[in-house]
């Protein structure tokens, strides 16, 4: 069976390019894969099924969304909120009407009116201010013949949006950590926060909570690693915080390995997973996360979840202090994190799940047709018609065991 594989690939710095670099070699051991390249999809690769990795970044995923529109297939929905992608495919190319139509399809007349406001510059771009309220995933869902998601959160959002096709929930694969030597960084405890540091990472809240921890534990340090978003550029970095900008992969692992616990906050969530959180679990590091989206689905044993509410900073400070003083709890959480990765996120396991989903999807329609034809023929031969209640019973039984849809 052959799969046409659409994804941003290296040298793209997209997280999905990293994801595919990790997954592809293992997937290729299980199914034939032909990788589609940007700009070369006028003639679709000959394959039994197409797999499209869709995320919110128009630079990385715009061409993939267009290919999907032309040839429906299985979509790996890396995040549910695709407003930025849709804006990039329309407004960025001067296609105001396309954006207005997309907003109307997603959110009715009110959506169209808001889009007018954006187009005419009367209100700030929605993809910067409230994208989570206007996810604009509808067009992608309409073209998807099946979905692969990483979380129940995205699955539920897709179902709420009316997606009726098959959904496979496949955990994010873990990177093999290799031989990691912890970096020499002071701090007792040493906390870390990694990734692109934008507003949704709750950096001001993290810094406020860390300041409280420092009052009780003056030796505590916070490693803040990653490119800072423009809007946070003027932010002052308090005492005890160690800043590093974008670091190469090897340094990233090394810095993470030096930490006693890793903080991975998020709000609003676009339904994404966090590569930094997956790496932290791989290294057996306790996590502190926001109680939203995919992060909410992490088990208690590996993560302390902090609700995003008016007491967020207090709760976060308490969580950091708890981990700071309780080495045994850190050890237990670290052990549970490693077990979780082994059980759910190991690369061979994830590739097995992909192969299963792709094989089910590629031939599933034909299999279903043969089965239904068999049943219909047998029913017809003894005089049972399509409208007879007996066939309703048959249909219910088919659904029960996953053979109906």
């Amino acid at each position, binding site marked *: *069976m052959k799969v046409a594989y659409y994804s941003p690939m290296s040298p793209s710095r997209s997280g999905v390019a990293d994801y595919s670099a990790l997954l592809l070699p293992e997937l290729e051991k299980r199914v034939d894969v032909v990788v589609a390249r940007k700009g070369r999809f006028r003639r679709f690769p000959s394959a*039994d*099924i197409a797999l499209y990795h869709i995320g919110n970044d128009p630079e990385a995923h715009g061409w993939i969304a267009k290919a999907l529109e032309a040839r429906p297939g299985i979509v790996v929905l890396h995040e549910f909120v695709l407003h930025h992608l849709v804006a990039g495919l329309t407004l960025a190319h001067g296609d105001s009407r396309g954006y207005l139509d997309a907003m109307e399809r997603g959110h009715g007349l009110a959506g169209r009116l808001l889009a007018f406001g954006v187009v005419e510059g009367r209100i700030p771009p929605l993809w910067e201010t409230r994208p989570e309220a206007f996810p604009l995933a509808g067009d992608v869902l309409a073209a998807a013949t099946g979905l692969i998601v990483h979380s129940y959160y995205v699955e539920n959002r897709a179902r709420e949006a009316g997606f009726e096709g098959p959904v496979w929930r496949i955990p994010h694969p873990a990177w093999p950590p290799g031989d990691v030597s912890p970096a020499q960084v002071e701090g007792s405890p040493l906390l870390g926060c990694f990734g692109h540091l934008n507003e949704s990472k709750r950096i001001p809240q993290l810094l406020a909570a860390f300041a409280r921890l420092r009052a009780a534990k003056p030796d505590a340090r916070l490693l803040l690693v990653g490119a800072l978003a423009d809007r946070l550029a003027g932010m002052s970095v308090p005492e005890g915080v160690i800043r590093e900008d974008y670091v190469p992969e090897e340094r990233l692992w090394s810095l993470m390995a030096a930490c006693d616990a890793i903080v991975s906050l998020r709000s609003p969530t676009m339904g994404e997973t966090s590569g930094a959180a997956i790496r932290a679990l791989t290294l057996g590091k306790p996590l502190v996360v926001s109680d939203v989206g995919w992060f909410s689905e992490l088990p208690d044993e590996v993560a302390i979840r902090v609700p995003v509410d008016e007491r967020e900073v207090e709760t976060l400070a308490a969580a950091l202090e708890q981990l700071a003083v309780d080495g045994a709890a850190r050890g237990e959480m670290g052990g549970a994190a490693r077990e979780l990765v082994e059980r759910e996120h190991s690369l061979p396991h994830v590739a097995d799940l992909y192969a*299963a989903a792709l*094989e*089910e*999807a*590629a*031939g*599933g329609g*034909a*299999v279903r047709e*043969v*089965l239904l034809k*068999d*049943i219909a023929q047998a029913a017809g031969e003894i005089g049972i018609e399509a409208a007879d209640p007996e066939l309703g*019973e*048959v249909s219910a*039984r*088919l659904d*029960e*065991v*996953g*053979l109906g849809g």
Partner: protein
Amino acid sequence: MNIAVCRPQVPFARGGAEIFADELVRQLRDRGHEAEIVSVPFKWYPGQRVLTQAFLWRLLDLTEADGRKIDLVVATKFPSYCVRHPNKVVWLLHQFRQAYDLDRTELGQFSESAEDRATRRRVQRLDRTALGEARKLFATSRNVADRLQASTGLEAEVLPHPPQELAYRTDAYEPFVFSVGRLDRAKRIDLLIEAAAKQGVELVISGEGPDRERLERLANGRARFTGRVSEAELADLYARCRAVFYAPVDEDFGMVPFEAFLAEKPVVTTTDAGGPLDVVRERETGRVVEPTVDAVAAALVIGEDDARKWGQAGKALAQKVTWDSAIDRLLA
């Protein structure tokens, strides 16, 4: 209790699974239950036919029969466990292995076509649903339980099934090796025939199956093929043989090792045989060797003293597996 024991039936074929289900019914009746076999013919080819056949079980209504409530169904192997019942217990002999560990081997049945690949995945999904809804899940051996866990994530308790009741006895250790079972490729009787030819060991091979003609050609008159035998003949062959060969590929369990042990006969098996390795231990209850002609050939040569000693050790193991304890766990 009114208990329906569900098993698929390949018409004109009778093997361990059929014997097991019949015996279970008999044992349940002996303990005062109303028990009955429920059977549906099974044909697993061509292609997607396996799903249609599996689905037939789903359409059965076993909640009651002629106004009498059926309290419990005990399903045994694919696809009988697709049956629908509020009190379904599965005592798993095996899944449809062509969809799992036998896939992409010479014993597999699914090609690389998109349809065949999808059929295989549908079988797997069916298993997760049908086995997952069982109130209790038992597996006949550690091997079966491990395979189930690896393929579906479902946990089963290991519950070995006692062998059929025969007039087990030990008459002699005559210089022949005995093999009994369905004659298909998975049972690896060809390995036995080639190995026996190397050492000049006499063979008696009982059972029927699609591979019989090929095996008879391979043996070229050096083995006696008895076909299907009666219970009395079977007990007699166990009673007289020197040892029993039983080395299918990654077998579920099979009743043969315990039957051999109850006749105080050692079992020759291979390191990749799966279930038999739960009870056949090297030079304790038989021989466990690499699955090569040379290794099996050497293992078939067993002196009478060793055969007796290992057979008696096997009998001690087999006597612990009783219907009383099995049924207690099944109905708990």
